[in-house]
């Protein structure tokens, strides 16, 4: 498959160089993306990271009201402890640092190792595990972290920006994760630059339910159906796990290869579904935020809001990938 790259080996580095060139508000050093104006004394630092290929997640969410640093790994591969240690030290303003970690074995191991090895910085961690496609049981590595990562980074970031202490920021991060659920459906596979061919074969006539953000297979394959039916399958999975009630923040997220127009087609169905359950979409986000290279498909992430979380969602944010109110 055709790719706009110089070489498969340099794609992450080259993209980071581009981000640094495009956004003077960011500083890129040794595979860590920092806020150029940080660290701010007394402010809790937020560090996240994970494999590359999910842009704008995470580096695109570095900035005012969100992350202080992001550690991009190789494509779909977690960052290494060295990066996380550097980032943690680099963003510490004396108030401690929160690690926001998506629940994948590799991410968890590398963040754990970094938290153990870093000296002189108070570190708390939150594990994001919102994907209802995966059964959370003794017999799996637990639910995967997907779309809710953006919600956690945004709302915990807003609270940290206000000067809240580490324990409170960590508690809100965990609460957002707790209140959030995601489900994804893929129409096509992604292709990693190193492999050069699709990660999995998905026939023209089928979709993958419960797809992971790295092209990991999900729950089942079913025939391609109208957007209304696909949206209903996703929403049934969410509603079955955490009943839709009250005020909701709803994101319809593209996986990188789906036109915005189609995402709005899906959002219309999602909004109708929510209404049908007697709940309200009070905040929304539609676009490509947690992507899987050029995969076609969408995921829906829902967070049950209260007034405090709504306020944190509405708080000003200024990052390459998300900005309002400032």
């Amino acid at each position, binding site marked *: 498959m055709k790719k706009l790259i110089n070489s498969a080996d340099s794609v992450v580095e080259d993209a980071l160089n581009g981000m640094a060139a495009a956004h003077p508000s960011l500083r890129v050093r040794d595979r860590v993306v920092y806020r150029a104006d940080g660290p701010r004394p007394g402010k809790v630092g937020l560090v996240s990271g994970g*494999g590359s290929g999910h842009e704008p997640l995470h580096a695109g969410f570095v900035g005012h009201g969100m992350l202080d640093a992001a550690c991009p*790994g*190789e*494509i*779909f*591969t*977690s*960052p*290494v*402890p*060295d990066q996380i240690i550097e980032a943690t030290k680099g963003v510490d303003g004396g108030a401690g640092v929160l690690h926001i970690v998506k629940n*994948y*074995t*590799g991410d968890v*191991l*590398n963040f754990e*190792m970094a938290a153990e090895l870093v000296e002189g910085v108070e570190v708390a961690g939150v594990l994001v595990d919102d994907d209802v*496609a*995966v*059964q959370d049981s*003794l*017999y*799996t*590595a637990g639910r*995967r972290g997907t779309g809710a990562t953006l919600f956690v980074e945004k709302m915990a970031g807003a609270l940290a920006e206000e000067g809240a202490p580490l324990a409170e920021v960590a508690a809100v991060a965990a609460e957002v994760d707790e209140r959030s659920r995601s489900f994804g459906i893929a129409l096509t596979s992604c292709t*990693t630059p*190193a*492999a050069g061919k699709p*990660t*999995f074969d998905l026939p023209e006539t089928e979709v993958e339910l419960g797809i*992971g953000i*790295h*092209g*990991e*297979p*999900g729950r089942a394959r079913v025939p391609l159906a109208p957007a209304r039916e696909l949206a209903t399958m996703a929403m049934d999975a969410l509603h079955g796990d955490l009943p839709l009630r009250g005020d909701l923040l709803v994101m319809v997220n593209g996986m990188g290869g789906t036109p915005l127009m189609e995402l709005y087609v899906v959002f219309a169905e999602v909004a109708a579904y929510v209404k049908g359950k007697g709940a309200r979409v009070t905040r929304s986000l539609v676009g490509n935020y947690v992507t899987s290279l050029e995969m076609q498909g969408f995921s829906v992430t829902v967070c049950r809001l209260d007034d405090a979380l709504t306020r944190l969602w509405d708080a000003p944010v200024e990052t390459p990938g998300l900005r309002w109110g400032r």
Partner: protein
Amino acid sequence: MERDLFVAWFEEATRLVRADRDRLTRLDAAIGDADHGTNLDRGLTEVLKELAGSPPESGAQVLTTAGTTLIRRVGGASGPLYGSLFRQMGKALETPVTLAGFAGAFEEGVVAVERLGKAVLGDKTMVDALAPASRALALAVRDGAEVSVALGQAARAAQEGSKATIPLQARKGRASYLGERSVGHEDPGAASAALFMAALASVAG
């Protein structure tokens, strides 16, 4: 002498992993995220660079250097897991190296992997190749086997352990997300662990 042997182990392991890179990645594509061969090849290349750049003085140091490099440079789950295996082995290995000493250090390394990955035999992970290899080594030591025989048995045990993951349902790592659909595929981590053991048997056997 023993230092050179351990360096040769990593050179041979790198050669085997590179030759099998596409197979490992294909196994990973079936039940994971299609990067195991690529990542391990990249990590081992870094290990060889590190070993050439600042040559360690002992076999134990070769192991700790390799382990630390894998932890720091590879990422993913395999970096910390393989890194811990070799780092713990290096810490436990006494000079001069004997077969019994090596078997003991290897067992400690495998325990470190089990602890870090919270995996046990049968979870469909690299432990399914490493633990049988460790047991085969211990048995060979008990029976007073020659080095070449002992390492050959360990390599065979790892290979059989890896093949034995095919009918298993994964309970750890990304493959566990698949539930029953992980059945019928060989675990890529077990497959690469078998390559490490084959490399050792080939250079020290």
